[in-house]
């Protein structure tokens, strides 16, 4: 185990506490930069989605993980970013301009959602954000002069400084990666400065935050605006990646996917957003596999265990019918959320920390290290 000997306040401020971090993150960046030369085009495409989902995950972490304001409306922010890009593109606005415009517009709308949210907490806030998402979905479907209604909008190939950047080119991947990395660095900067600490203070005790001079309302609105703006930026990339957007892409299920990203990744650290994004993007190929290959495999297993030909075919069709059930994806999401909340509230990143600590302390790891204590002194809380 490494023991850090701190000699300067700088030691607690810098992003990489010691040289080991520089090496491992340097390697990670190198691998990510080399990825287009090694991976198949399908995996590259998945990797781009991981970048976009992780960006949204970071945005949601700022709001939900660090400020403690739950939101099931982030699909709407993504939609606003995407549609702003598609709309401005029609008028030949250059990419950098509509990219920033989408961020600013979504941020402004996020702040507007933040104001009514000031009076709401917990489940009521979730309901309010769901309503917001439904309103946006409806507007997208009805405001045909701008959004083209349910027919959707075509998004032209991204053109950066006069150079076309197709959605499956390495350059597009690098662009998404850069947006993700800049978002993460910006968020880390925020978290080590007064604003980030004010966010965490609001999450843990609004009364105490207020009595320490934190303008709770202002910071909640700020948190909403920042989170929405980042999601809007991700929305622009999302639109370009899909090259076609329509209202039914930005439903409640997408918002739930974003919640799963941070819930499964771990809500206490930015690592969680990235790990969760990998998880959620990779679950799709898994479901396809379930649909395509699973019935045959199970039928094969049944046949080897002595089932007749007809029985095996019967099993195969039943499994196939199950795998192509309509709500299966939603059901699997639900089960995943429940299992994580029950058994690993710290998410994948929390599990990783536990495994790491186990080997660092081996053989002295204590099972109770990560046990949360229950404290019963909160009887008389002022809200």
């Amino acid at each position, binding site marked *: 185990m490494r023991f850090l000997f701190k000699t300067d*306040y*700088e030691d*607690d*401020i810098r992003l990489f506490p010691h040289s080991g971090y520089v090496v491992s993150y340097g390697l990670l960046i190198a691998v990510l930069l080399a990825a287009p030369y090694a991976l198949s085009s399908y995996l590259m495409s998945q990797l781009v989605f991981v970048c976009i989902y992780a960006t949204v995950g970071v945005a949601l972490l700022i709001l939900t993980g660090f400020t403690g304001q739950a939101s099931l409306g982030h699909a709407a922010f993504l939609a606003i970013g995407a549609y702003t890009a598609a709309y401005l593109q029609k008028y030949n606005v250059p990419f950098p301009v509509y990219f920033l415009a989408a961020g600013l517009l979504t941020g402004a709308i996020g702040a507007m959602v933040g104001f009514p949210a000031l009076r709401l907490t917990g489940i009521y806030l979730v309901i309010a954000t769901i309503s917001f998402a439904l309103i946006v979905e409806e507007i997208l479907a009805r405001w045909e002069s701008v959004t083209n209604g349910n027919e959707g909008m075509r998004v032209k190939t991204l053109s950066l400084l006069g150079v076309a950047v197709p959605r499956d080119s390495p350059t597009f991947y690098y662009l998404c990666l850069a947006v993700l990395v800049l978002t993460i660095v*910006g968020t880390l*900067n*925020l978290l*080590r*400065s*007064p*604003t*980030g*600490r*004010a966010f*965490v*203070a609001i*999450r*843990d*005790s609004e*009364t*105490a*935050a*207020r*009595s*320490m*001079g*934190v*303008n*709770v309302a202002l910071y909640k609105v*700020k948190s909403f605006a*920042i989170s929405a703006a980042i999601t809007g930026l991700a929305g622009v990339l999302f639109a370009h990646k899909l090259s076609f957007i329509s209202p039914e892409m930005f439903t409640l299920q997408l918002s739930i996917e974003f919640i799963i990203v941070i819930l499964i990744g771990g809500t*206490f650290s930015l690592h969680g957003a990235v790990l969760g994004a990998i998880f959620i993007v990779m679950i799709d190929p898994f479901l396809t596999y379930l649909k395509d290959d699973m019935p045959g495999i199970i039928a094969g297993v049944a046949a080897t265990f002595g089932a007749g030909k007809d029985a095996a075919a019967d099993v195969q069709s039943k499994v196939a019918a199950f795998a192509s059930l309509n709500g299966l994806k939603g059901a699997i999401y639900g089960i995943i959320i429940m299992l994580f909340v029950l058994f690993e509230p710290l998410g994948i990143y929390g599990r990783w920390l536990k495994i790491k600590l186990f080997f660092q302390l081996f053989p002295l790891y204590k099972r109770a290290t990560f046990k*949360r*204590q229950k*404290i019963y*002194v*909160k*009887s*008389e*809380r*002022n809200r």
Partner: protein
Amino acid sequence: MSYFRAENLSLHFGGLKAVDAVSFAVEKGEILSIIGPNGAGKSSIFNLISRIYRPTSGRIYFEDQDITEEAPYDIARLGIARTFQNIELFENATVLSNLLVGRHRHSTTQLWQELLFLPSVRANEKVHRRRVEQVIEFLDLEPYREKLISGLPYGVRKVIELARALCSEPKLILLDEPSSGLNVEETDDMSFWIRDMKSELGITVLMVEHDMSLVNRVSDRVIALNYGRVLAMGSPAEVQQHPDVVAAYLGA
């Protein structure tokens, strides 16, 4: 003019008069204790000062300025910090970041500067950190810097809450039962710190306390309350011998 003044302060919940026309003044640099049986309205007075409640009537003045209508977060900016009876710390953050939140009223950087973590932000962070370290040294909190609040024992949390209030460099500090839940030694430490806060840091202290030995040791003056009204005011000995106070505590 007094340093801090409450005039005819009242807080009514329907027919219940939690605080009823209470007037008192705190002089600069003194330690004033408020005592009284449970439900006498002591904590309510604190919550009125820090604007968690809005007074039904009455005014509050601090440094000759009417602060009755100030927003809750502006109270801290004026230099009034407080602790809570039932510890209100930021549970899932480290001790250090808890204390740094105490520095919030001194932060001057803008959001965009923080996103880029400009040198000005870095320099400010170091200033904040230096101040926090001074408080950590003052209250002997060195072993706990990196610890999460959720894993710390009650007595330490109590001290950290005091530390967080001190980090804001207040002119007036409101201590809501600083010794509740502390053992004898911790209470002793607390009494030394309260006196040092007055003599070394020049902070005026307004304190709600049940532990009479602590009150006797540190207070310059004492106010006794019951049913939201002032029973007696004066030196600790005077107040304790006041017949109304004896009656309120022992029944008569």
